[in-house]
């Protein structure tokens, strides 16, 4: 909310106009969160050039070496370089986070729009969504993965499924409020067709809360992916991910704590950065919600 007041306090007479991007730039959460996130994206993209070796390269002679000048983050139980594995692991985490957020938003928005506008379907669709929401997300994801072959796609679908009802509910709520607005009534009176009303009048009103929701979904998806891999129900073990590294580190944790510490720290920092970005976006884009939390 502080972002809404000009920093130099010149606004006593008439409100000074700052563009949306100006507001976003003034928000420390948005700034810090997106900076850290951008850094992680660069690290993930440039993984092969960041003094890494093949993350799957085994050197059985150099098992469980503590962090040193050669092995920055130490080596794991099979003699693989933990630094390289952490750097490559960023790829999967960020990919899963981004894809889950986009898919959950798209699917949830479609369902929410339909439920909010087609009254006949509303009850049925929302009851199904209630049922899905009553199942704890991680359990639903675990069950979905247990039933199909482990792959990155399965993990994405499994993490996305529990998020969809929440988005659908949010969009439906916005639709139900907006459809009572005079300008929507005017559009109906003018003979505008339903798809156009949804596209032009309803959808734009959902964008701000959806962007905020999307960042939270991304944060929780990154976390859930790691949890699933950690539990052995995630991305196939031959792919280096932070969760897989920690799953393997579990067995040797007492003698080699770094096998869990480094991937864990990267995971925590990533989630923290996305959450900060989300809080900042919420304060800027959705001040009404920000006031409540």
């Amino acid at each position, binding site marked *: 909310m502080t972002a809404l007041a000009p920093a130099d306090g010149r606004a006593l007479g008439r409100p000074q106009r700052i563009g949306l991007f100006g507001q976003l730039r003034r928000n420390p959460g948005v700034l810090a969160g997106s900076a850290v996130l951008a850094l992680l994206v660069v690290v993930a993209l440039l993984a092969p050039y960041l003094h890494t070796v093949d993350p799957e390269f085994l050197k059985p002679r150099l098992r469980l070496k503590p962090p040193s000048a050669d092995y920055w983050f130490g080596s794991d139980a099979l003699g693989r370089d933990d630094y390289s594995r952490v750097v490559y692991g960023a790829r999967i985490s960020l990919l899963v986070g981004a894809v889950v957020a986009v898919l959950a938003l798209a699917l949830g928005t479609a369902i929410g729009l339909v439920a909010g506008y087609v009254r006949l379907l509303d009850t049925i669709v929302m*009851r*199904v969504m*209630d*049922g*899905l929401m*009553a*199942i*704890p*997300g*991680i*359990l*639903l994801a*675990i*069950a*979905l*993965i*247990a*039933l*199909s072959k482990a792959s990155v796609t399965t993990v994405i679908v499994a993490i996305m499924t529990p998020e969809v009802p929440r988005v659908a509910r949010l969009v439906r709520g916005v639709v139900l409020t907006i459809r009572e607005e005079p300008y929507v009534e005017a559009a109906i009176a003018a003979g505008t067709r339903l798809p156009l009303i949804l596209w032009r009048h309803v959808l734009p009103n959902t964008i701000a809360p959806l962007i905020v929701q999307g960042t939270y979904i991304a*944060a929780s998806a990154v*976390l859930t992916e*790691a*949890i699933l891999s*950690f*539990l*052995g*129900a995630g991305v196939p073990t031959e792919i280096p991910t932070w969760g897989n590294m*920690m799953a393997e580190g*579990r067995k040797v*944790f*007492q003698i080699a*704590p770094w096998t*869990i*510490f480094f991937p*864990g*720290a990267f*995971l*925590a920092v990533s*989630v*923290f950065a996305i*959450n*900060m970005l989300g*809080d900042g976006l919420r304060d800027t884009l959705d001040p009404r919600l920000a006031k*409540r*939390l």
Partner: protein
Amino acid sequence: MGAFVVKRLLATIPVMAMVALVVFLILRLSPGDPAAILAGDAATPENIAKIRATLGLDRPILVQFVDWVWQLLNGDLGTSLLSLQPVALTIGQRVGPTVSLAVTTIVFSVIVAVPLGVIAAWKHGTWIDRGVMGLSVVGFSVPVFVLGYGWIYGLAMQLRLFPVQGYSSLADGFGPFIQHLVLPTLTLSVIFIALIARMTRASVLEILTEDYIRTAHAKGVSEQRVLIHHALRNAAVPIVSVIGIGIALLIGGVVVTESVFNLPGLGRLTVDAVLARDYPIIQGVILVFSAAYVLINLMIDIAYTVFDPRIRY
């Protein structure tokens, strides 16, 4: 009040029916043939056909569903593929550690988080407030298992204050029981404390702007009394409701925490069942957890009327 409870109870029936339908469909709509999955990799076609017949998978899907629900209503959750024990019995044997951990976590979180939130709201805008809020964002972000291994490393391995892992049942004495639960509780509580502290601060902050708070101050009521009797009491409803929302979070956290600390509860059971592809167990655990979630939220809805007699349904 009585009519409300009955109405609210009835409203949980369609939700639970939906949960049952979803759980049923997950197994049926998944790409693999359940009979083939159950039979394992080395199964012959005859084997698979036999399993399909014993499970009744060759009957119409609607018949299967009705049949399955009828069994559920009779308390029959099926039989574990691995131990060949009834699922309900297995779940009953594993429920102890999970409930213990959930209860200690909720109690500890509320004890810590509510005062933190009230103080943050009272000292609104100061460094205390900012500190509490900052910690709560951190608390949201640190993964449960990273935190768990942090506690194990620091408090169990270095300082040797608590056992590293494992569980001791209440029947074997209260001391060891609590000792084994301290680290898991500390682990699971952090995210819960973050959530409750945030909500407490927000709702107390809102109440503090009310006229009756000013009146209370004006007539000389002490600061402490204003905060606890006037502000916190009126802020109770959103705080209680966030605890309800947090139950889903808690259930997810229980699964992970039990794995980190090797607690033989429902979370471990779920993970082991997934690794062994023991579908009846997976279905049973999901149903039980979902029912618990729905029931706890039902109780919370009823609790509203106690905390705030103005609420009439």
